[in-house]
């Protein structure tokens, strides 16, 4: 180990039962560098991060670390009800006798925040903080242990473009002070803009190593997928007809509520909602789905859209919810049982008091075929499928018959590039076939790639509207972060 290396992983193998998550990986994190670790879902990135930071023990191989390795999780591991300083010192509280020395703890947090220019009020309660600030708390907590290396797992997934720049400025400061930094991300633009070195994993193995300045987004993407990227479906010229309208829609409570939203989605149009997570997207989706109380008026095909979710489904609304495993699927059930969900109460699946199993199986078979669901059979439990294939089941069920309105909330979250492209293509195909599509995504690139029109949602209100010809990435990004 040279003095320049903070962490050296040699021949790392990690097995979970018969699954080989990491398959013989060598990786060195050098002091002063920001290292990007890229790869599709399930490539083994998070497992490797857990091994580097000592959370998991490798099945084979050695980890040599020049000090501790901090890990900032994708889903924050903070105690929401506690204050910032309480979270930072948790587990290593300064004491005076038997009592917690709150003043010393506060001072320590304040000093850390100053050193790394991480502006945060030590006395704020974590649950009141926006995600970008909560992430600073998580980083501060790791920095309090003075790690030799800091690993961040998908740190930008919940941040607005401006916050992302601020995060990388912080990481650059850290690196300059001699900490090795590794960022796990699938946002390749960030890799190119902010990192020094990039390692790409696929199926548990390293398939590419490069200095960032010597490579490109395309080269990294090809390495991640292991070939050329599938092309997105072409957009057809479609005559727009009015379909869905929202008038003065208020929904939800508190910081994540939706305020006075009015907009339309036409047949043959994808309207994209751009915005950072927590700006009213869930309230919007849930109000349309009929699972959240709201005021204001919704119409579909000129008729009022109201009633419970069953009435919405009957009226032609299909929703692809954000959390497929909780809100869309019954994981222990088979694919065949899952495709009936939502249509169990009407023909052709309902036959008197019973479910027509042959009609259900035929539907499942057609969805598996048309949407390329990779599964042993329609009897396989959806819980046993990969995230991408689970999502294909959800999307296939929503599009088995063309809906009047399709609401797709984060439809490609956490799935691999191949599956994501297939899902995105299906949204375009649905639009081409005449569905009204409302796409709600935290990934600005996805919104810009798919939408005919973009609405920016900030603090629950529509802050701007752009048509496809007039997309202005910088302006949309600024509105997402609250620019007037």
């Amino acid at each position, binding site marked *: 180990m040279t003095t320049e290396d903070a962490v050296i992983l040699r021949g790392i193998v990690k097995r979970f039962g018969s699954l080989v998550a990491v398959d013989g990986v060598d990786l060195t994190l050098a002091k002063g560098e920001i290292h990007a670790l890229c790869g599709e879902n399930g490539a083994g990135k998070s497992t490797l991060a857990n091994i580097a930071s000592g959370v998991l023990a490798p099945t084979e191989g050695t980890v040599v670390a020049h000090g501790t390795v901090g890990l900032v999780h994708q889903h924050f591991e903070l105690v929401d009800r506690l204050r910032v300083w309480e979270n930072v010192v948790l587990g290593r509280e300064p004491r005076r006798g038997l009592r917690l020395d709150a003043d010393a703890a506060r001072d320590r947090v304040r000093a850390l925040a100053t050193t790394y220019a991480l502006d945060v009020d030590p006395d704020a309660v974590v649950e009141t903080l926006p995600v970008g600030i909560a992430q600073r708390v998580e980083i501060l907590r790791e920095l309090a242990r003075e790690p030799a290396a800091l690993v961040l797992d998908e740190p930008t997934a919940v941040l607005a473009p401006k916050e992302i720049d601020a995060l990388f400025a912080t990481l650059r400061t850290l690196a300059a002070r001699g900490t090795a930094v590794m960022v796990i991300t699938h946002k390749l633009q960030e890799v190119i803009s902010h990192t020094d070195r990039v390692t790409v994993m696929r199926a548990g193995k390293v398939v590419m190593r490069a200095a960032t300045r010597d490579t490109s987004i395309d080269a990294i993407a090809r390495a991640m997928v292991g070939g050329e990227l599938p092309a997105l479906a072409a957009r057809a010229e479609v005559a727009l007809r009015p379909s869905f309208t929202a008038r003065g829609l208020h929904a939800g409570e508190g910081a994540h509520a939706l305020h006075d939203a009015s907009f339309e989605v036409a047949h043959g149009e994808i309207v994209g909602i751009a915005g950072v997570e927590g700006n009213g997207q869930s309230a919007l989706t849930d109000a349309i789905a009929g699972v959240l109380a709201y005021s204001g008026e919704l119409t579909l095909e000129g008729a009022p859209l109201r009633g419970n979710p069953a009435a919405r489904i009957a009226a032609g609304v299909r929703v692809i919810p954000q959390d497929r495993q909780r809100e869309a699927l019954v994981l222990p059930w088979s694919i065949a049982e899952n495709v009936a969900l939502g249509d169990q109460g009407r023909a052709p699946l309902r036959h008197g*008091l019973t479910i027509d199993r042959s009609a259900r199986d035929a539907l499942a078979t057609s969805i598996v075929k048309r949407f390329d669901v990779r599964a042993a059979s329609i009897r396989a439990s959806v819980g046993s499928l990969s995230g991408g294939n689970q999502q294909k089941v959800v999307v296939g069920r929503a599009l088995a018959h063309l809906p009047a309105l399709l609401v797709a909330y984060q439809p490609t979250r956490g799935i691999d590039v191949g599956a994501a492209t297939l899902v995105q293509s299906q949204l375009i195909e649905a639009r081409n076939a005449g569905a009204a599509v409302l796409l709600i995504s935290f990934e600005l690139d996805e919104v810009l790639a798919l939408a005919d029109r973009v609405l920016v949602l900030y603090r629950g209100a529509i802050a701007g509207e752009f048509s496809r010809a007039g997309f202005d990435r910088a302006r949309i990004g600024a509105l997402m972060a609250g620019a007037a």
Partner: protein
Amino acid sequence: MSGRSGAIFAAVLLAIAAGAMAIAGANPIAGFGALLHGALGGERQLSETLVQTTALLFPSLAVAFAFRAGLFNIGAEGQLIVGGLFAGLAGASFVAPGIVAIPVILAAGALGGGLWGAVAGTLRARFGGSEVIATLMLNIIAALVANYLVVGPLHAAGVAGPETAPLPVSSWLPVLLPGTRLTIALLLALALAAGLSFVFARTVFGYELRAAGDAPAAAERAGIDLRRTALVAMTLSGAIAGLGGATLVAGVLHRFNVALSPGYGFIAIAVALVGGLDPLRIVLAAFAFGILQSGSLTMQALAHVPKDVVAFIEGLAIVGLSARRFAGSRGDGH
């Protein structure tokens, strides 16, 4: 529960049972032998075991029914008692040929249990109240109210104990084996198990019930009314338990007595969980627990093992399986 962890759990319980017998000063092998002999040793023993199996089967199916809908109904005992009380009052006051009276008595039991279940179901559906706490408390209320009624306002003239007037013989459930207490209640319970199995596997109603239990957020978005499902499931669960109470009244005691159930509604929780909430496997589980119930007296008499050892083991099984149920969704990650 997977086969392997189930086997380990059963082995641990057996070991604890053997230990408890030894501590009580008895020979565990003689204890188990007496238990099995007392439960299966002859026609009389076997019929008594089947009587216990039947008594356990109704509340176990009731518990499973609610569990499948995601509701932890620990109130089968109370629902069984209220059902038994309704059946006892109907049976003592309504005199008609058996072909008419018996269905009325059974219906009265289902009605009573259903009403009692509906109380908890309403609290859950309307106010979001925990059905666990509601059913637990309703058990106590049921027992005390039933006790008050049969020694107080509804006390029949000429009856000594805390019980209703006896049912006319014509209203007794027909006996399957002459000279035993085994009645057609067993066939009713088996038919109910088969019926529920069909409901879960094939019907739209059963599908919606299971969806609400297995993935409530997904079920709600699929147009399934979770409040209505909770109310209907608790009501029907209570009705099944109440029907069980009615079969005890019309088939075993021939009157309602406050000592109608030695805790069938509680043991039922363990039976339902051991049976994996599957009606047909619950039949087997109820038979296994029926063996424990009916063999324990013989074990006490012959091997000098207190029959409380059985209650002790059943209690451990309930605690262990309930904990597993609540912790089940966690720890499955990789």
